[in-house]
């Protein structure tokens, strides 16, 4: 079946450094992608989204890059802070259904 996955289960970075979390997706028909942050014991929290007609979108301290050629999605977090420590999931929405397909998740650990 089609799936969305992340390359690394855990990423450890120093506070203040930039973080890059990667995701590969397999459904070339997907046209909407979301990054979620999940803190321990909480539900997924929307961070940023991107449509397939874009290759880059910036938010506050976060940037999402989409490379449709290689079906790759990444989340860049600038000046990573301890509060950024969480599990990050990429997800794609199956067109017109609202059904989110989540990847496995990357745990971001920020060292002070």
């Amino acid at each position, binding site marked *: 079946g089609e799936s969305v996955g992340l390359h690394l289960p855990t990423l450890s970075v120093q506070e203040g450094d930039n973080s890059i979390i990667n995701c590969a997706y397999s459904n070339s028909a997907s046209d909407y992608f979301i990054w979620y942050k999940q803190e321990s014991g909480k*539900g997924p*929290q929307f961070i940023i989204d991107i449509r397939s007609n874009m290759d880059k979108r910036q938010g506050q301290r976060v940037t999402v890059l989409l490379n449709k050629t290689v079906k790759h999605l990444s989340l860049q977090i600038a000046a990573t802070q301890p509060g950024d420590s969480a599990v990050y999931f990429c997800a794609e929405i199956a*067109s017109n259904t609202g*059904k*989110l397909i*989540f990847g496995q*998740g990357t745990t971001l650990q920020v060292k002070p």
Partner: protein
Amino acid sequence: EPEVTQTPSHQVTQMGQEVILRCVPISNHLYFYWYRQILGQKVEFLVSFYNNEISEKSEIFDDQFSVERPDGSNFTLKIRSTKLEDSAMYFCASSRDPGPSGNTIYFGEGSWLTVV
């Protein structure tokens, strides 16, 4: 900021018992979802619901599961006869629009179900 609320936050139940998980979606949202997350695993889609009927369901959502919107505000997930493998965090979510049309799906804090 509006939010999706879920109750209970944690429930322990004996195998074979019925469980009802409750959700209050965001008030102007029309599309409702249940997802689950087994400990340490990814979030999995269970079911989507619109206009008082199921829009889509996954293979996980078998006959033991049902959803209902009994009134104008609540959205419930019922597990008729719980199994040990139903132990998971169950997330309710809602959105204003379906699919990739600029919507954002908002998740609740989750209901942690432990089946013993």
